[in-house]
């Protein structure tokens, strides 16, 4: 989709938009009535979508805090969404350098507005399936100097990428990064064949197909990155457990996250 078409579709309050629906289920206010109506339809199919969305976002905060405690100060984050609260630059020590990116130019425009007064933070348009557009640009050099010991973020985006796209992204990042670099990622441990067709179609209709895969398959795709502590359920990372009444579908419970290592 061209930028202008995307902008037009996001700015069009008469049609539901995946980004705004996501915002709604996270408890945000950046959505319209049409998004809320569609979100309710989705919630009927995937009742724990809000829980899932929160776990994904909290895993980001968790992973960033952990690597920041280890001393990492250079971050390149993909599919960042809006860097409003509890995002990388807010949970890391002052002076941490962050490149946020998103495929959606409206989100990027909005994000740039939010971070405009932060000298060590940038926000650029980039498709997580084509990370080379950032890596090949002058931006990493301008922000990190010659330091390529970085932390990459691919949080909550793997299920929107095909297997070949994930493999390409992982290889590209691995080849660019210095030894010791980290990469946090999460995905749903779910065999695609076991997902009801109508649930897949919901995402397809919103122009954002969902790609399900097992964690075993994901581990193959992230190679040659090392899996560190391994892919663990979100509850283990975050120290929370879902109440029985929160387990309305298997999606949230099946989320797995890892902090990979080069």
């Amino acid at each position, binding site marked *: 989709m061209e930028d202008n078409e995307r902008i037009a579709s996001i700015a069009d309050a008469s049609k539901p938009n995946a980004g705004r629906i996501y915002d709604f289920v996270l408890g945000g206010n950046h959505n319209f009535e049409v998004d809320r109506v569609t979100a309710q339809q989705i919630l009927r199919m995937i009742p724990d979508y809000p829980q899932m969305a929160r776990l994904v976002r909290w895993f980001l905060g968790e992973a960033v805090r952990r690597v920041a405690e280890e001393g990492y100060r250079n971050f390149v984050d993909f599919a960042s969404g809006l860097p409003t609260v509890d995002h990388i630059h807010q949970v890391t020590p002052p002076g941490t350098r962050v490149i946020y990116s998103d495929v959606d130019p409206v989100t990027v425009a909005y994000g740039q507005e939010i971070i405009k007064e932060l000298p060590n933070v940038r926000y650029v348009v980039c498709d997580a399936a084509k990370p080379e557009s950032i890596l090949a640009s002058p931006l990493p050099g301008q922000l990190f100097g010659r330091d390529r010991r970085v932390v990459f973020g691919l949080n909550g985006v793997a299920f929107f990428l095909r297997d070949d796209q994930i493999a390409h992204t992982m290889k590209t990042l691995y080849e660019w990064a210095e030894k010791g670099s980290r990469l946090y990622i999460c995905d749903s441990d779910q065999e695609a064949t076991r997902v009801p067709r109508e649930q897949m179609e919901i995402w397809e209709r919103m122009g954002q197909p969902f790609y399900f895969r097992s964690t075993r398959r994901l581990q193959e795709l992230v190679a040659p990155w090392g899996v560190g502590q391994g892919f663990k359920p979100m509850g283990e990372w975050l*120290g929370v457990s879902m109440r029985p009444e929160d387990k309305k579908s298997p999606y949230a419970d099946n989320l797995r996250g890892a902090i990979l290592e080069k």
Partner: protein
Amino acid sequence: MSLPASRLAEGQKALAESLTARLRDLVFENRYSLHPRRLAQLGTELAVSFTRFLQDPAAGDPAARGEAAAREGVGPRSILAVAEAMRGFCRTLFEGDPARMGPALDAAERFCSALLQGFMQMVEALILQDQERLRRALSSALEKQSRDLLVKNHAVNTSINGILLTDLDGKVTWVNASFLSLWGYGSADEVVGMPLADFWAEDERPRAAEVLLSSGGWRGELVARRRDGGPFNVEVSASIIRNEEGAAVGIMTSFVDATERKRLQAQVIQAQKMEALGQLAGGIAHDFNNLLTAIGGYVQLVMERTPRDSRMHKDLVQVQAAVDRGTGLTRQLRFFTRQTAGVRTVISLNDTVRETLEILRHTFPPEIGVRLQLEPALDLVEADPNQLSQVLINLCVNARDAMTEPGQVRRGTLVISTSNAILAEERVGKYCSARPGRYVAVRVKDTGAGIPAEVQDRLFIPFVTTKGMRSGTGLGLAVVYGIVTNHEGFIDVRSAPGLGTEFELMLPRTSRARETAPSAPATGLARGRGTVLVVDDEQQIREIMSRVLVDCGYTVITAGDGAEALDRFGTGAGIDLVVLDLVMPNLGGKECFARLRERRGDVRVLVTTGHTSDGTAREMMQRGAVDIIEKPLDLKEFARAVARHVSAA
């Protein structure tokens, strides 16, 4: 009554744990912005704030605490659960102590009311703030989109390609300015709503409807119809316009006027054809040159040994005359093939016109009037006056013949005019080699029979003649073409049967001043003494040159190619002059010349060639060759040149 600080302090830890547990239970009710790891700290902060308030209501600001909780992302159900836990804490802590229970619950109520009020106010403020941010972001995005659309609209509107949008019924919905210009309409209002069929030639309409409306994506060429009915060729590219759901809503068609491209293509093909003919004719002319040089040379040798009054001598004169005619023909062919550079000087074409007309005037019957219209301030050109004179002679003779019927003379007028011209790209663009700039024009116009359109296309091809067998070689206009093209000029023809013909020659103007004409060469078969190395791959030519030079008193060494020449030359000691052909097998003249110079830096080389226009001979002159003699050889001129350069050795 004040509440006991010690009991509150004891209970604070338990309250913090209780609040944290509530917050954890409702973790998914909070906004994403509240990380689970923060909950324990938040529970403690709320417990401390609450117990301090119970002890001293002036000490805390529960509304501010509520606002902070909202900012952090505590959800409504979580904050209500927190308030409920605080009330429960008071009830439990002062159970059995009614004197303190009442004030404690009052204080808890005040705290919770303020907490919830602050919370709700902040939630409302955040909603308004987020909505305002969203509005600004969308407004900024729409503004950018609007700017981009404006640029794209402008690009489409001002595209040099004609662009036409139609609905699925083939009715025009939009056109750009180039479309109006191509089809000759004044405004889009005239066109919008018209059926697509109206824009195509009659027999092209079914095809246009089929390919443009039914296929959805098509490239090709169609014959269009202008508003005034005139046909023209357009290159078409059509594609379906689809809406966001992928349904077809119309057709976009882009057009380029193919007329100019076709004309240019024809021009290129014509130029290539003439070039191919030139190469063919050039090859023939070269071989004939050599043959005629040999025949003519031997005839001259035999004639010198034959008594002038003998029958043999008279026959030889006839042979020589035939050779001269043959030489004349090959010379003309070489003009066409542009193998002859000639001697270029700065001249006024007015002078050339006057001198040529002087020669021709007596060949025109009195019924044909001749008028000159010469521009007095005519610019100069750099040209070979003899070749330009040949051009004018050929054109004037053609004009005369066009105004003459076999056996009778019609009345007519020949007008020769000159003028200055400044030509733009539009005028010269159709000629492959012409460039925009200042030109001198010469027009030769007759009132003769005119030339049919089908003949005009092949007018300059050699041996194409409209004069039948009665006269003409078919080389006249080919020679004109060759000479004019060789002078970086071009020719236009305007003619129609019964309306006469006008040839217009355009030659580039020069800014150089006129030069003094060179002195006329001396006559006579010059003799001399010295050793001459003659190098030519044509055995007969070599033999002729050798015999002439021996007869003139020279010692002659011969070689059949460049390699043999180097053998014979050795160190060059004792060789006064090398007569060197340019085009030879094994080692060509240019390379041989370079090797000779390596062996003896002051070697004197006289170049002989049938191709003076390709630059090689000129290049060799620049590198130190003493002279160039053009083939077919004039033996007297050849002998004079040899004598001059041997004596200078």
